[in-house]
């Protein structure tokens, strides 16, 4: 054998050249250049080549989804009907040798809000889509019987799924992995659980046995289309434009991630939170500190810190850090989760690995390490301090494919209705829905998953529950345009309030906040955006509305870009200088654009999402967050005492800064024409 055979020594040779002849059309630009359209009504599967200029304009991921969905869903389409499109999209950078870029997107018209819907998920599914040779798989129509899509290098077909219909997400995945395995290599599966099958509006799409693209209710869309799963076993290669450049930037990023000094014990994080609450000034948060905590514990590192600093809503947004003090949150302190963590879990191309598999003593035996959002939504939000039930419910909801944040909101809403006497024991099928009654919470979640009795009323989120219960219960329901907000208190950080209210996908905690902006450190690479001083008075956040709106605009643009390239928020928190997304895009695609130009592209994509909402009859003003979460009435104790947000003024400034109509939030027709005409 010649020395040249050694793959490790001969890298340059196949950096530039395709491996197989059949892949001759493959581009050396990080993307695959094709999408797949599947019509479930007729069973027609059609490849479609996209010109380069589409990618140059819309990048990939969410941007590509926005382009396809805006043009192809008719204005009056029923989200659960045949006209709606459901798209699975990998990020532009996935598989190109970049780090932190393993997230995929599901897009569609959301049945929960009626407008633009997207959900983002990690795991190992994102590269699998690209390895089948597509930058997106779009489903339209409704199948007669349950089906799943199978793709490998030779076969693309819809197969009968009647034997997996009715199984939960984990069982489905195990069954299909076994059925479609070729040798040792298992196919990648994304599927819906029982909640998606029963068209629960708060259901999501699950992959890797418990990672869910949960928000916007897109599992219901998949269930309504009777598409049980997508099984991908492609082996095509993803070739970036300049692999050595990609690796060079990855190494810079990797060095920052590897820096891991020993850190304090779990309960001590609460002390940090308390200090942050008591100081009148705030220090600019550096993402490196958060990274250290993420690497040690995962997102559960915030379990005690966050309630202490007033970042967690407690007791259906009614309570405060006083109600969920150190002793109550101690049962869910970060160390509890790492103690039972037996396997560390990394998403694709993630050097951080904030996930894990925990062993439990309930009937399932193991579960993915619950995320901070889950622990708080089922814990402090319902005043439940029995951490064992949280492990169990995490697995129950994962298997059903239901959104834990929305489920927590629905339960807390029901508890408050019960407390106020709007519903009685007869309505709740005999459940004593008092705050913190963990047995009742477990029973109720199991009912919600099966849509039995009272569970049926809550299984579609709080907005639907208000309609079903009536009696003036809407004052206890906290949502933004139908979507329940995440477990970050908008009164503590006006940025959250703005993004919960103003985004095309309202109620999402992952789109931006003041703290995120501090950690992005974008002012180091992008010109003309506000800089945050190392230390500032907390009250300035509430006074300077103009600056908040500007920050919100930059956040929205940057997060849109992140979603287009499939990067992970936790990686991006390291700061723009340490994780160089812009350089990575240039290296992968061969374009030579500046960060400012990318931010402009992202702004266009963001405007297109807003235009999608306008086209489908959504009034952006109505997506405003419920009053209680905005500090109306004011809280009289706890960390957020006396804080309220002037959200109307902030929304106006935000729309103005995007160049939309400042009264209605509509992009002008000329703007939209300009965005879609160039392609």
């Amino acid at each position, binding site marked *: *054998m010649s020395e*040249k*055979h*050694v*793959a*490790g*020594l*001969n*890298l340059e*040779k*196949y*950096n530039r*050249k395709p*491996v*197989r*002849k059949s892949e001759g059309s493959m581009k050396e630009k990080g993307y695959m250049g094709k999408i797949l359209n599947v019509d479930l009504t007729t069973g027609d599967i059609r490849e479609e080549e996209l010109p380069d200029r589409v990618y140059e304009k819309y990048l990939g991921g969410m941007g590509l989804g926005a382009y396809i969905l805006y043009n192809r869903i008719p204005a009056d389409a029923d989200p659960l009907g045949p006209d709606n499109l459901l798209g699975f999209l990998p990020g532009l950078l996935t*598989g190109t*040798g*970049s*780090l932190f870029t393993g997230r995929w997107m599901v897009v569609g018209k959301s049945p929960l809000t009626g407008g633009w819907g997207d959900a983002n998920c990690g795991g*190992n599914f994102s*590269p*699998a889509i690209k*390895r089948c040779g597509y930058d997106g798989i779009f489903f339209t129509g409704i199948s007669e019987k349950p089906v799943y899509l199978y793709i490998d290098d030779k076969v693309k077909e819809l197969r009968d799924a009647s034997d997996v219909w009715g199984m939960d997400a984990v069982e489905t995945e195990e069954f299909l992995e076994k059925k479609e395995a070729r*040798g*040792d*290599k*298992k196919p990648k599966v994304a599927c819906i659980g029982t909640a998606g099958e029963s068209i629960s509006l708060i259901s999501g799409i699950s992959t890797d046995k418990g990672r869910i693209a949960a928000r916007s209710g897109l599992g219901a869309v998949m269930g309504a289309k009777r598409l049980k799963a997508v099984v991908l076993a492609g082996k095509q*290669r993803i070739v970036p434009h300049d*692999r050595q450049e*990609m*690796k060079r930037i*990855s*190494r810079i990023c*990797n060095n920052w*991630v*590897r820096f*891991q000094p020993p850190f304090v014990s779990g309960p001590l994080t609460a002390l940090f939170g308390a200090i942050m609450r008591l100081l009148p000034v705030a220090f600019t948060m550096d993402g490196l500190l958060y990274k250290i905590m993420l*690497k*040690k514990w995962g997102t559960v590192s915030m379990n005690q810190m966050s309630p202490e600093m007033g970042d967690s809503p407690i007791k259906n947004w009614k309570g405060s850090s006083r109600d969920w003090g150190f002793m109550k949150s101690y049962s869910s302190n970060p160390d509890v989760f790492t*103690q*039972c*963590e*037996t*396997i*560390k879990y*990394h*998403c*694709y*191309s*993630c*050097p951080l*690995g904030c996930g*894990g598999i*925990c*062993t*439990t*003593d309930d009937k399932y035996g193991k579960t993915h390490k619950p995320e901070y959002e889950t622990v708080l939504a089922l814990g402090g939000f319902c005043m439940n301090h029995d951490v*064992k039930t949280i*492990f169990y419910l995490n697995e129950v909801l994962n298997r059903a494919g239901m959104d834990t944040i929305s489920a927590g909101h629905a339960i807390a809403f029901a508890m408050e209705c019960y407390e106020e006497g709007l519903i009685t024991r007869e309505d709740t099928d005999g459940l004593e829905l008092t705050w913190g009654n963990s047995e009742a919470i477990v029973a109720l979640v199991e009912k919600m998953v099966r849509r039995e009795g009272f569970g049926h009323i809550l299984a579609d989120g709080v907005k639907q529950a208000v309609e079903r219960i009536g009696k003036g219960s809407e004052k206890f329901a906290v949502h933004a345009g139908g979507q329940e907000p995440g477990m970050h208190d908008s009164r503590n950080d006006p940025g959250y309030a703005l993004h919960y209210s103003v985004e095309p996908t309202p109620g999402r905690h992952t789109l931006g906040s003041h703290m995120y902006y501090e950690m992005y450190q974008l002012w180091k690479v992008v010109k003309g955006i506000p800089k945050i001083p190392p230390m500032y008075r907390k009250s300035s956040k509430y006074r300077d509305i103009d600056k908040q709106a500007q920050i919100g605009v930059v956040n929205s643009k940057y997060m849109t870009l992140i979603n287009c390239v499939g990067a992970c928020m936790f990686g991006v928190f390291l700061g723009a200088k340490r994780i160089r997304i812009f350089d990575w895009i240039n290296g992968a695609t061969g374009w030579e654009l500046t960060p400012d130009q990318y931010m402009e592209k992202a702004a266009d994509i963001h405007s297109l999402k807003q235009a999608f909402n306008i086209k489908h009859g959504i009034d952006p003003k109505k997506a405003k967050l419920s009053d209680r979460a905005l500090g109306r009435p004011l809280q009289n104790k706890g960390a957020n005492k006396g804080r309220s947000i002037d959200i109307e003024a902030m929304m106006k400034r935000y729309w103005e800064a995007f160049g939309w109509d400042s009264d209605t939030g509509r992009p002008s027709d000329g703007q939209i024409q300009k965005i879609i005409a160039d392609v």
Partner: protein
Amino acid sequence: MADNIKVCPEGAVKDASGHVPERVKRAEWKKPFFDRQKCNGCGVCLDVCPTGCISLGAPDRRDHHACPRVIDFKNCIGCGFCALECPVDAIEMDLLSVVEEKMIKEAVQRDKSMKWTLKKIGYRAFQKVMKLASKIIPFPIPVLLTGPGSVMMLAQNIKARGIKHVLVVTDKVLMDLKLPDGFLASLKEHGVAYTVFDDVQANPTIENVEAGRKIYRQNKCRAIVGFGGGSPMDCAKIIGARIRNPYLSVRMMKGLFRVIIPIPPFFCVPTTAGTGSETTVVAVITDAGNHFKFAINDIKLVPKIAVLDPELMKGLPPQITSTTGMDALTHAVEAYINLSGNSFTDENAENAVRLIFENLEKAYLDGSDMEARNNMALASFYAGIAFTRAYVGYVHAIAHNMGGLYGVPHGLANAVILPYVLDFCRKASEKRLARLAVAGGIGTHGEPEEELSYRFIEKIKTMNKNMKIPTGIEPLKKSDIPLIAVRALKEAHPLYPVPVFMTHRVCEEIVGKLLV
């Protein structure tokens, strides 16, 4: 055209000119080597591997990330895609023999790293402090009641303390054997009311403790009697700790001196000769949630009175006699070779070893031999006194995990693991082992120490063989070995003053030997 088409397993790939290249021999395929210094566990190689032969492996807390490895080099076709796509260039392709060499070299290098040396210094400093502290801490020694029938005297003692109601913690097996009946009758005779709590599992869990605590409070008991083997006694200790410290959960008491308020009057009646729990400061408990076994150490957990009644041990099956006896031997040996021992613990350990060598096999063959039984009970007590001051070692650290993960009885696990760990640390503790051999009566002063130490280990192996104790642990799974190693070392470092430190790699090797 890329060269890796030459390794296509189906020979189906043609190059540009359309001819199938000459296949490379299987033995010459290059295999990946993962450089842990560069790897970050991102999992790209898992995804690109066309045969799925790479796995991310078990957690490695030392690196804070999982490091990939090839599950089976037979399945690897040497295509090199992983090396090509690795974002941080942590994979090198090489011939299998070279890769294996590199893996060993790297593992050895890790053991010699400066970080590990500094850690070892830290551990020794901690142990030195603990040794000094143990001179100041007043370790209580329980009052002993020995001899056949001595259990009857306990009721009298309880009454003399003015106690009206006791909680008797035992297990279902003993209740079925009607072993506590005599003791309970004597309690009644002396007018002491009692409540029996017999819901203790073989490896007691936190749930057992909470159930026992509930019963104690319901019946307004005033004292606790631990009646049975190690499990009921440990469970009784923790029940006591929980009753007086309701604000401390069992998990919070894990570690050293975390029990703040002394426990209620506590008496021990061991029915096996082995655990030494009747005199030690330690109580071991399992967290059912994660199958993690941990110890609570506090001098407040030492009972007031310990009853060593050989009659209670008469009906003990030979299997349990042997494993509990070997458990006591493990205590004695580990306490003796540990570095925190003093003349007092040495004396006790030597006594225990002598008694066990002389009596264990007798008691195993003839369960009704009262003298052997009594001597074994005493040996267990002495061993307990020794190890509660000088700590145990790696045998216990590994055995606790076997119990936690698979429910292997503690004594059996100890008996199986002891010879392997002694083999590992024989060189470092040659002198001590030789002295133990002399004390145990299998050698005389003046013989070469090396030979004596070998003879001592050989003696343990023969005893195991004679008493039909297996040489491996049946339920042990290969995939769990890294996890066991991580947990065992976490338990042992820095608390146990072992004669020589074990690295993760060595620990994995030793646990690997236990595979059946």
